[in-house]
């Protein structure tokens, strides 16, 4: 969904990434402009909350800025930055799980709407986003990252493995387990999940 790009765009992208690597801050600003969408979407899907997603996305760009010299230009820049974002979100989710009482459990779900609900956004869209969050909330952090990279970024098993530092068989087994668990929890009668999240 986030992948298609023309040859001219790709060339321009390669140019400002190269300039940013050489310390050009204006070029890095271009990088932020160009990749804020995919990075924010990944963080939002992972964390399920617009404020935290913004913070995580900002942190991702800060990490990218600090480590830009270690970026290998032979690798796709999107893959590199999304790998930083995924790992950052996985860490956040692990820390969140360590907290004994999650604040989320005390707040009604509708207090956390999707960001920027424009006038064009219909109730069905909101419901869809709500359903997606409900689905992803049921997965552990690494499984969630694998699912998000697979469905929103059309990543191959190899790309997911590289992003999450896993082996390809491990990615396949995680995806299988995640899909199976989601399918089993889905109630076809009410079109909702039958029991509490994991």
């Amino acid at each position, binding site marked *: 969904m986030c992948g298609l790009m023309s040859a001219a765009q790709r060339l321009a992208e390669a140019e400002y990434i190269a300039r940013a690597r050489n310390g050009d801050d204006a070029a890095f600003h271009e990088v932020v402009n160009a990749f804020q969408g995919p990075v*924010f979407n990944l963080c939002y899907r992972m964390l399920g909350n617009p404020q935290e997603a913004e913070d995580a996305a900002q942190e991702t760009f*800060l990490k990218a800025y*600090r480590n830009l010299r270690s970026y290998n230009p032979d690798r796709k820049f999107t893959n590199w930055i999304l790998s930083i974002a995924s790992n950052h979100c996985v860490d956040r989710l692990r820390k969140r799980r360590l907290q004994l009482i999650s604040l989320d459990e005390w707040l009604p779900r509708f207090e956390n709407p999707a960001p920027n609900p424009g006038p064009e956004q219909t109730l069905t869209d909101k419901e869809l986003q709500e359903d997606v969050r409900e689905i992803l909330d049921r997965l552990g952090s690494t499984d969630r990252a694998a699912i998000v990279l697979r469905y929103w970024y059309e990543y191959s098993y190899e790309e997911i493995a590289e992003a999450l530092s896993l082996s390809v068989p491990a990615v396949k087994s995680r995806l299988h387990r995640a899909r199976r668990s989601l399918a089993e929890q889905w109630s076809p009668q009410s079109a909702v999940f039958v029991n509490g999240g994991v």
Partner: protein
Amino acid sequence: MRHQEYEKLLFEREDLSEIERTRLQAHLIECAWCATLNDQWAAVEGILRSAPSVPAPQGFAARFQVRLEKARQRKQARLLLLTTMLTIIGLLVVASLLGWALISSGPTIFSWVLKVFNQFYWVGSVFDVFVDMLILFLENLLEQLPLVIWMAASAAVSLLSLTWITTVYRLSYRDIRRE
């Protein structure tokens, strides 16, 4: 084949060959268990596939610029603090070495201590005591330490000060990137 083997096909449908796909379809017709699981997964996957990407909120890039600037300032402050502390520690080490050289230079140290206490007794102002002590200390150093030690100490102090000044100067140009 048992359910488990069909489940594998069911959840990895995008990787299936034509033969495997046909086999799965045939199994779904005769097996209610797998057919239900298939429908449930189709519903969940349908939601995942139909949800569009969420765009970044307005002003995201501008807020990042502010954050980057703050991070840069914090890093510069940390570097400055670190360099200052290291310089102070370095100066203390040089001073201790000088003091040690002075003490080990002979019995004249007792006369020096005596002079200091005399000054302390007669001079009322703390500032004057400090200045006098410094002058006495330097006079004694010049008298008692060999020229080589004196030169080495001066070189060390100069080097530390130069390092500190250079770091402070470079900090005004340096950002938070890892070199």
